[in-house]
């Protein structure tokens, strides 16, 4: 399932790793370390030209998980 976030004007932190290649911050990291029950995050893509961020999960998120995802996205833009 693809979740769209519009009017994202600045580059969001999608995924950042430390020098050893271990995830250290970003949407991927925060989902992994969240209370979300579904953590099957496939990828994120953002385009400055359209100011659109898409977050793609394998399945469909519950309402509670979607709310948690909304907060994670907000924290990383």
């Amino acid at each position: 399932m693809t979740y769209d976030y519009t009017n994202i004007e600045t580059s969001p932190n999608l995924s950042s790793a430390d020098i050893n290649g271990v995830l250290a911050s970003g949407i991927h990291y925060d989902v992994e370390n969240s209370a979300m029950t579904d953590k099957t995050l496939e990828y994120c893509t953002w385009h400055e030209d359209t100011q659109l961020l898409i977050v793609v999960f394998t399945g469909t998120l519950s309402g509670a998980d979607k709310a948690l995802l909304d907060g994670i996205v907000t924290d990383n833009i």
Partner: protein
Amino acid sequence: MANEFHKNLVGNDLHIARTQVGSGDPNGSVTAGIIGQFFYDTANDNLYVAEAADDSSWVEVTGTGGGGGGVFGTQYTYVASEGESSTTSSTFQQKLRMTTGSLPSGDYRLGYQWMQNYDRSKSADNEVRVEQDDTTQLVGPVQVIAKIDDEEQGYYLMGGFKKVTLSGVHTFDIDFRETNNETTRIKQARLELWRVT
């Protein structure tokens, strides 16, 4: 469609002949009344001459001048996506697409350019490619590795050109992806195309 009389400069010769005017390639749709009749394609700015009095013998006039004659530089198409894009996807994501009009058969010059990011903390795990019609990879995948004296993160300018033989409608993409669960960035992606022969 109109029947008109026009002066036509073909090569070094000036012809005054019956000329039809219409849109698109006349082969299969416009019947020439006489051999030597002209047809001007307003959609593509091309001139055709009939080698037989039928609808299947129209030949595009290319002229004899330098640089490929009358068709050089025609069919010019340009698209750009200047802003930054980023992804964590290991499947190629489309950064930019160019869709051509219905091209006359010929050789074309495809130009391509983009800014591809590097990150010294990462291995070469970002890839960019140029693809035709979602099937044929023309360039890449291109990976970049930071030089030892580079800043921690930055961009390299990548680009080039390629001769492609085309006819009809085609698409060209610049795609990018990440192969190590981190973030790949690309910006200032541009594609251009024009006819050579």
